């Protein structure tokens, strides 16, 4: 069983530090690492690949402790932005060069077979410069596979692609990783990668993992304000707990009272995270929709994103809701319109200060 485990890996690189990174990936699991630029995501991958020596901690790949091994002996598949094909070599030479390195332990599969398996046999003599992104990804995977990696490290391979190409390549990559049953670490700053790829997601900032959990958990119940900001939660409201009872917390935010599901001492400051898509908009307050929070508001602005529309609301506090553009039209939303925002208490998530 392939696995990747990091145990309290720390590293100092100039003024940058990677702090006590620990996690374990089992079997074919994909862990997405999400964080802003400069969070140390690439440094983390490069450390696992063997390009930086950790100050302390251990790195286990498969069943081998690779902490002291150089990159060429760690058996990691490394996919970088634009896929890192060698432009001076043909496709078959790219793959053969990798297989040469692996052939010393007799594990390299036949190159022709490998090209056929990835559907790139017809490109054998082509230059990487003329390939489409999809073809490049297949060549990069075939080339990495020639070395029989125990783990895949993917460093924003889709960063330079447009959205439709990204969706297609992501599906293909997912299919490959699942079939190969190899654990993978996928670094990105794009939220859509998280939902589409990740079994679990690690939120990283300033060299530390702030939260590591199932992606739905991180998106709906972020641990802290920082995590909520990184995963792009639109409404983060500063408030004060006024009372608590079995139904939840009453939190005063601006002039409004919010019901939230969570825990916290009365009288203390708390931040509430509310996803834009958890806010339901209705023209008049009919009790047909169950929601503990029913907030009258005025539409300030509409931001049409195509299928979705973001609506900025003024309810004494500023709220951002997100709904289908079609529904927005049916509601007759326009700046200045009076509206009621419905939010279930379960969707109001108090953040740990």
């Amino acid at each position, binding site marked *: 069983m392939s696995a990747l485990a990091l145990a309290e890996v720390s590293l100092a690189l100039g003024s940058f530090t990677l702090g006590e990174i620990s996690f374990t990936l089992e079997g074919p699991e994909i862990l997405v690492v999400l964080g802003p630029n400069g969070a140390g995501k690439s440094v983390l991958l490069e450390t696992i690949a063997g390009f930086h020596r950790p100050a302390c901690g251990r790195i286990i790949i498969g069943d081998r402790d690779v902490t002291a091994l150089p990159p060429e002996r*760690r058996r990691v598949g490394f996919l970088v*932005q634009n896929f*890192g094909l060698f432009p*001076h070599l043909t496709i078959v030479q790219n793959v053969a*060069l990798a297989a040469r*390195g692996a052939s010393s332990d007799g594990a390299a599969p036949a190159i022709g077979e490998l090209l056929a398996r990835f559907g790139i046999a017809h490109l054998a003599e082509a230059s990487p410069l003329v390939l489409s992104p999809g073809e490049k990804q297949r060549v990069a995977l075939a080339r990495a596979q020639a070395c029989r*990696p125990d783990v895949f490290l993917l460093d924003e391979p889709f960063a330079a692609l447009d959205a439709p190409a990204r969706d297609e390549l992501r599906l293909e990559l997912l299919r490959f990783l699942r079939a190969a049953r190899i654990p993978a670490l996928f670094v990105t700053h794009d939220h859509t990668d998280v939902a589409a790829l990740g079994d679990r997601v690690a939120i990283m900032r300033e060299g530390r993992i702030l939260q590591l959990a199932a992606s739905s958990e991180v998106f709906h119940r972020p641990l802290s304000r920082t995590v909520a900001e990184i995963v792009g939660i639109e409404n983060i409201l500063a408030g004060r707990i006024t009372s608590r009872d079995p139904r939840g917390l009453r939190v005063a935010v601006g002039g409004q009272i919010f019901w939230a599901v969570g825990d916290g001492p009365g009288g203390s400051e708390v931040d509430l995270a509310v996803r834009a898509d958890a806010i339901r908009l209705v023209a008049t307050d009919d009790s047909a929709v169950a929601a503990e929070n029913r907030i009258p508001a005025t539409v300030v602005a509409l931001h049409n994103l195509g299928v979705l529309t973001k609506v900025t609301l003024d309810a004494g506090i500023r709220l951002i809701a997100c709904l289908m553009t079609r529904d927005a039209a049916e509601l007759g939303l326009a700046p200045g319109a009076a509206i009621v925002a419905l939010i279930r208490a379960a969707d109001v998530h108090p953040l740990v200060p």
Partner: protein
Amino acid sequence: MTVAARPWAAGVRGGSPAVLLVAWLCGGLLLAFILLPLIQLFAVQTGGSMLQVARQADVRDALALSVGASLLTAFVAGLFGVPLAYLLARVNFRGRTAVAAAIDLPLTVPHTVAGIALLMVFGRHGVLGEPLETLFGLRFWGTLAGIVVAMLFVSVPYTVNAARIAFEAVDPRLEMVARTLGMGPLQALWRVTLPLAWRGIATGLTLTFARSISEFGAVVILVYYPMTAPVQIYEMFLNYGLESASAAAALLLLVSLVLFIAFRHFAYGRRLIAGSGR
């Protein structure tokens, strides 16, 4: 069509035709300024005069020495300059900009000054010249070694700079990917980074060679004999006048041009003119 009516602006998007016309006029004058003296040098030759000067043993020896010394200089420049260029491109060490500036220094030193400075180091009583002769019998005055030292000093910046730019253009992540594909650090350098930087390195070596074969000032001060071609031409000019010197000059020009074009051809594949796309 406006494009057909203004051929000087053909194939260009944007840019005012008037500006382009002025640019063409300035560029054309500059080109004529460079080419005219060179063409004139060949035009005044009677054909027989170049052949006659080519038959002189001292001229042939001087040409062979110039070519040989310049090739050797380019080789030494590559041997020491390419590793330094790699360091400058890849390692963010303390004092990197100071090192890069020091490498450019020879470009700003007048070549007679370079010759005198080299004489003080590599000359008979120089700080290196004297111990090197005592210890290894290596002499720099009146020898090929001296000519190479003089040429190297004035021409090595071209190799270091071109190679540094070439290395900087190679994505360091390609080398990382190569390592994860089972290649050791030297193998990754040899199979990925060097081939990708090769064109730039070859351009640098070609420029170093060209600069070396044309060097006069530093060579004539550090090493008068044996005479390289430029020194020989200078001597002919002083002793026999313009006519015989010009024949030898045309011959040197011919040899330099043929070699220069051959090297560029080697570096750029079939393309003779640099920069016309990749």
